[in-house]
C-alpha cells in the first residue's frame, strides 16, 4: 500500500500519463501547439478527473458491477459538458484554441482508466489524491510539450491569450509567422513527444544505475 503522499506524487513522474502510462495521446499531440493549449487542456482534464474520481469512489459500493462503465461514462460526460460550458462562457479564447478536444475529454482513456483501475476500488481521499496527481502530471507534461513546440515553432510563449499574456522569446522578422513551422504541425508533435520520452527514459535509467552502484 502506498502512502498518501506517494498516491499524489506517483502521477508526477512514476506514472506521468502521456509518458509512463502512455494514455491520452490524442489530445497530447493535438492541443500542444502552444503553452496555453497545453496547460488549458491539462487543467480541464484535471478538473474532470478529480470530480469523476470523487463521485465514482463515493458511489463505488452502490454502482452495480454490470453497468459500472455506463455509470462512469454518465458521470464523466456530465463534468466534461460542465467544463465545456464554463470555459465557453468565461475563457472563450482558450475554449476556441482547444475546440473539439474539450468535449473529447469524455473518451480520454486516462479518466476512464483511473475510474476503472483506481477510483472504483479505493476510498474517497485516495481517489482525490490520485486524480490530482495524475491530473497535474498530465498538465505538466502537456505544458512542457506545448512550450517546447511553440517556442521552436513560432519563437513565442503564449501564457494566456485572453489577457494578452505572451512572451516573444525569439523575435522574428516583420511578416514572419513561423520560426520552424514543422514543430507546430502534427508531425512535430510526434518528434517532440519522442524526444521527451527519450530524455525521461535516459534520466530514469541513469538514476536507476546510480542507485544500483
Amino acid at each position: 500500500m502506498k502512502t498518501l503522499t506517494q498516491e499524489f506524487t506517483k502521477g508526477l513522474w512514476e506514472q506521468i500519463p502521456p509518458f509512463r502510462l502512455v494514455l491520452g495521446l490524442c489530445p497530447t499531440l493535438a492541443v500542444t501547439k502552444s503553452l496555453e493549449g497545453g496547460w488549458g487542456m491539462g487543467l480541464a482534464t484535471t478538473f474532470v478527473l478529480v470530480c469523476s474520481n470523487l463521485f465514482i469512489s463515493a458511489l463505488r459500493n452502490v454502482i452495480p458491477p454490470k453497468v459500472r462503465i455506463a455509470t462512469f461514462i454518465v458521470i464523466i460526460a456530465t463534468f466534461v459538458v460542465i467544463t465545456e460550458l464554463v470555459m465557453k462562457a468565461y475563457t472563450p479564447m482558450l475554449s476556441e484554441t482547444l475546440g473539439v478536444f474539450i468535449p473529447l475529454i469524455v473518451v480520454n482513456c486516462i479518466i476512464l482508466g483511473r475510474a476503472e483501475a483506481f477510483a472504483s476500488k479505493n476510498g474517497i481521499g485516495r481517489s482525490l489524491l490520485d486524480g490530482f496527481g495524475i491530473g497535474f502530471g498530465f498538465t505538466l507534461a502537456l505544458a512542457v510539450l506545448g512550450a517546447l513546440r511553440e517556442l521552436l515553432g513560432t519563437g513565442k510563449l503564449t501564457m494566456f491569450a485572453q489577457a494578452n499574456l505572451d512572451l516573444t522569446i525569439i523575435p522574428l522578422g516583420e511578416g514572419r509567422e513561423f520560426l520552424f513551422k514543422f514543430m507546430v504541425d502534427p508531425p512535430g508533435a510526434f518528434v517532440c513527444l519522442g524526444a521527451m520520452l527519450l530524455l525521461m527514459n535516459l534520466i530514469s535509467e541513469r538514476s536507476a544505475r546510480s542507485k544500483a552502484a
Partner: protein
Amino acid sequence: MRNKIWFMAVVLGIVAFLAGLALAGVKGMTTPVIEKRILEKKIKPSLDKFFDGLDLENDCIEDRQVLDLGKDARGRKQVTTLFLGKKGGKAVVAALQTKAAGFGGDIEVLTAFSLDDKKILGVKTLSQSETMGLGARVSNDAEPFIQQFQGMNYSDGVEMRSNGGQVDAISGATVSSVAFTAAVIRATELVEKNVDSAAAN
C-alpha cells in the same frame, strides 16, 4: 441486490437524472453569458467598423431579429440573426451571420450589406478551425482574400473566379476559400429574401 436488473436500472436512472439536472443548471447559467460575449466581443466591433459614419438612428444590436431558416438535413432547427440599421425609418444597412463547412469544420461569417447600392460593406470570420497558416488566414482581416469583398456589388450574385465569378481564392486553401465564399453567398441570398419583411417589423 446489486445484480438485480431493476436495481441496475434504478441506479443508472438516478445517476442520469442527477447529471441532467446539474447540466440544465450549468447551461442555464452559462448560456446568457456566452450569447452576450459573442454579441459584444465579436459582432459589435465588426458592425461598428462596417457601419462607421452612417449615423444610424437605431441600435442594430438591440433591434436584432432572429430568422427561422427551416430545418437542416438532420432535422435540426436552423436560425440566424439579422441586424438592420435604419435611417429615416428605412432599412439602409444589414448584417447577417451565416456558416458553411470548411476544411476543419464550420466557418462562421458575418457579412454586412449596404442595401441601397447593393454593396458588401465588409466580411468578418466569427469562428473557424482551418489549417494554421493556410485556411486560417480567413481570420485575418488584412488578408487580401477578405479585403476583396469590401465594396463588392452583389446584385448579380457573388461567385468564385473558377465558377466565372469575381472572388479570388487563397492559394493553397481552396476548400476554406470556397466555404467562406459559400457563407457569403448564403448571406446575400438571405438578405435579398428577408430584408423587406424584416424592415416592416
